[in-house]
């Protein structure tokens, strides 16, 4: 994370607030309020940690209680059965919970089908399994665990004072960590995963690693919070630890406050806790629970992004953000072709080579042994009727699909079995035929993500580069809009900008012209020529034949998963086999 001025300002602000709150127990304020504040710190920590995985990355978890409970019982067991000093149980609990979380993530995140509701189901199940195990083994055994005799340092002259301080410290830590993730490259990656995980992976985001990181942080924090909880209640039972409220409240608070913002859950936690505290235990408590649940329904239906975005809108009007300056005219923004690339281009050297590539889907061979070479600095047109395998070939080259047989070599490296994000890092980028932008990231951030993960820039540098690319593709005015507000032409050019921002050596353009009118097509073709002149090799999949002929150095024709022609455009398009594929045998001769 870049430690720029405003980041330091925010963190300093958090520390100051914490320091002020630290003074509270030293005053003669009633213990009731101290306990109440601790409760707020507790829920802020729980809700905010939940959102790192669920709000940011979109993996809604109903299992936060599992990690919390692990922490609770880890601390209780270590303190009572192994006589650990209490303060050491806090990090231990956190680490154990993080281990559980990471273990679950490692098993589950590699299975693509287990997203969305199935992931939520697994997390509920894990919660109940953990509860059952704890309940049926000597860890708890059904009778609960007493921590009354566990000794603790007394800050501010009392145990509650210590608990308050610990709760505050954990809360501060949670906020700093979450803010840090939010403002970092990892945060950008997590948001992209939320919107479209497959595209994020192809743009270079290491999705598996980031998701593991998110669940490790979320679970670890919940575990640490659990250990402080255990000493606070001093008698822990399975029933109370794994209550439905523990499962539900972080979800409600986060969604209510705004799960995509680092402050959202904290806001939601404060409001909900205050609202609930009006109802002490007893039958009214049940109603209060129902009321909170009703609130969740209303929020999901009416305010799906929570309260925070509305606040942010007001804030933006009050304190407009500084726009990254965008040059008026495109001076040489894009660096000149790298020297080695220019030399390679002169020699017609091969930059990408497919040998006998076979890809099968459940019995059907989509690619039947395609052998194709792409030369440095050329524009290679890739054409063929529907179903000929063009999209499959692109998906195999970018790593979205793994090869079944054959090999793909890119600048000396075999890439046929690499995960997509590594292929992106090596220098291959693509645009999507039907644009797939990250709909909840701004246009600027869409491009910045590609610059950051495809070209390896830090977050702020990536945004500056993104601004340049937006200028280059004519989207500068739309930098802070969201993709749904763009028309088709603009979304296609956004795809192009994203592809370019990764500064790839090879750019695969998948039907970038479809849906554009004549003027727009000509604009696009000019851009494509310019991109090539600056050193990028382009593979250009298109159906608009006049465009392909105009722009390509060579054309490759696929039909039924096999390559049937490769060479000079005029020669290829008059080749009898190619003509017969399109127009029937009668015309071939």
């Amino acid at each position, binding site marked *: 994370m870049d430690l720029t001025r405003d980041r330091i300002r925010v963190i300093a602000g958090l520390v100051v607030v914490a320091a002020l709150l630290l003074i509270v127990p030293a005053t003669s304020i009633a213990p009731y309020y101290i306990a109440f504040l601790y409760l707020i710190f507790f829920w802020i920590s729980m809700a905010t940690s939940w959102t790192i995985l669920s709000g940011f990355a979109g993996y809604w978890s109903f299992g936060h209680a599992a990690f919390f409970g692990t922490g609770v019982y880890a601390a209780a067991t270590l303190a009572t059965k192994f006589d650990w000093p209490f303060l050491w149980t806090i990090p231990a609990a956190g680490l154990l919970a993080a281990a559980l979380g990471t273990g679950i993530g490692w098993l589950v995140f590699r*299975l693509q*089908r287990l997203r969305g509701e199935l992931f939520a189901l*697994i997390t509920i199940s*894990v919660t109940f*399994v953990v509860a059952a195990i704890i309940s049926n083994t000597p860890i708890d055994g059904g009778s609960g665990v007493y921590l009354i005799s566990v000794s603790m340092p007394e800050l501010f002259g009392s145990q509650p004072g210590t608990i308050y301080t610990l709760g505050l410290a954990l809360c501060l830590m949670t906020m700093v960590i979450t803010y840090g993730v939010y403002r970092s490259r990892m945060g950008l990656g997590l948001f992209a995963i939320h919107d479209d995980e497959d595209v994020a992976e192809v743009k270079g985001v290491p999705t598996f690693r980031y998701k593991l990181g998110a669940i490790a942080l979320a679970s670890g924090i919940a575990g640490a919070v659990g250990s402080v909880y255990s000493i606070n209640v001093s008698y822990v039972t399975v029933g109370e630890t794994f209550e439905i409220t523990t499962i*539900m409240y972080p979800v409600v608070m986060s969604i209510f406050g705004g799960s995509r913002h680092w402050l959202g859950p904290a806001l939601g936690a404060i409001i909900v806790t205050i609202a609930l505290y009006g109802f002490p235990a007893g*039958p009214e408590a049940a109603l209060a629970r129902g009321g*909170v649940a009703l609130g969740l329904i209303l929020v*999901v239906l009416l305010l799906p992004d929570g309260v925070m975005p509305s606040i942010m809108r007001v804030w933006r009007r009050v304190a407009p953000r500084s726009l990254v300056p965008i040059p008026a005219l495109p001076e040489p923004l894009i660096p000149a072709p790298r020297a080695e690339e220019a030399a390679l281009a002169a020699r017609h050297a091969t930059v990408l080579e497919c040998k006998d590539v076979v890809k099968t889907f459940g019995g059907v061979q989509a690619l039947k042994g395609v052998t194709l070479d792409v030369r440095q600095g050329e524009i290679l047109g890739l054409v063929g009727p529907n179903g000929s395998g063009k999209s499959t070939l692109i998906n195999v080259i970018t790593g979205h699909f793994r090869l079944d047989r054959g090999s793909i070599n890119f600048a000396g490296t075999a890439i046929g079995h690499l995960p997509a994000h590594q292929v992106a890092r090596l220098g291959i980028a693509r645009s999507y035929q039907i644009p797939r932008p990250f709909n909840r990231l701004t246009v600027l951030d869409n491009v910045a993500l590609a610059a950051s993960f495809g070209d390896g820039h830090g977050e702020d540098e990536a945004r500056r580069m993104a601004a340049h690319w937006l200028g280059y593709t004519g989207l500068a005015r739309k930098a802070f809009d969201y993709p749904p507000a763009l028309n088709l032409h603009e979304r296609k050019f956004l795809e192009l900008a994203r592809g370019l921002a990764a500064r790839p050596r090879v750019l695969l353009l998948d039907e970038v012209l479809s849906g554009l009118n004549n003027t727009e097509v000509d604009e696009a073709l000019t851009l494509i020529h310019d991109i090539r002149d600056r050193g990028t090799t382009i593979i250009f999949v298109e159906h608009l034949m006049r465009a392909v002929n105009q722009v390509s150095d060579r054309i490759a024709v696929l039909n039924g998963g096999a390559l049937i022609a490769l060479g000079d455009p005029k020669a290829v398009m008059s080749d009898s086999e190619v003509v017969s594929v399109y127009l029937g045998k009668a015309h071939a001769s």
Partner: protein
Amino acid sequence: MFHASLIEQSLITGILAGGLYGLLALGLSLSWGLLRLVNLGHFAIALLGAYLTWWMGTALDIAPWWAGLLIIAAFFIYGIALHWVFMRFGVTEMQSMLITFAFAVIVESTLQFLWTADFRRYETAWGTQSWVVGTLYVPKLSLIAFLVAGALAVATWAWLRYTYVGRALRACAEDAPIATAYGINHRALSFLLSGLCAAYAGVAGVFIALIATLAPSQIWAWVGVVFAVVIIGRLGNPIGALIGGVFIGVCEALTMAVINPSWAPLVSFSVLIAFLLFRPRWI
């Protein structure tokens, strides 16, 4: 060491319990498989139905069969209303999960508010009666529940397979736009199905009242079991729901007999996790 008849009795208990599980899973399997909505509130309204049956029986002296009819009718309407809300707000699968989860909490807290967290038992004449076969006891009500579950499962399966409306529902689940192109009114059918699933929950609720002990927290106890049953039996498959129910019921019963009763809840969740991890293509 183990009485042979202990195992056999457990099998009987398990199979019959499986019938009730299957009954409960039926509505959920259909709505998840055919409507693509995850209804976490399914058990909640089933339990609500159970409480209503008990209350009408004990406070108003209405026989369970009549209470059941009222409940089924009311729940059918509730199902349509719920679906209307989902359609009106364009709710996604994930959002439906959150909303129905919240709804389950509302039902649970209302039940607790009205009738406290104490356990309730609906005492009826047949409640304690069993048929005796050799050394084995077959509780009458459980058997009836099992038979009703079987009948409903088969009837639903036949409806989905052999009637125009049933086939239309399956077609909509696979490819709604093309189904529409062939004259199927997707919207109207989805309302019908939603009402039906809620009605099934009502039927399950009546039998829960007659067989099991009631407490608001029961809602969460059923979650793992029913989801496990639905997934094993495959989404949208009525007979699968029954078979899955019996499978889980038997596993649980044997666990209770051979290992320890308190480990029983673990069984369904573990099966669920195992299925999701190792056979994610199954559903």
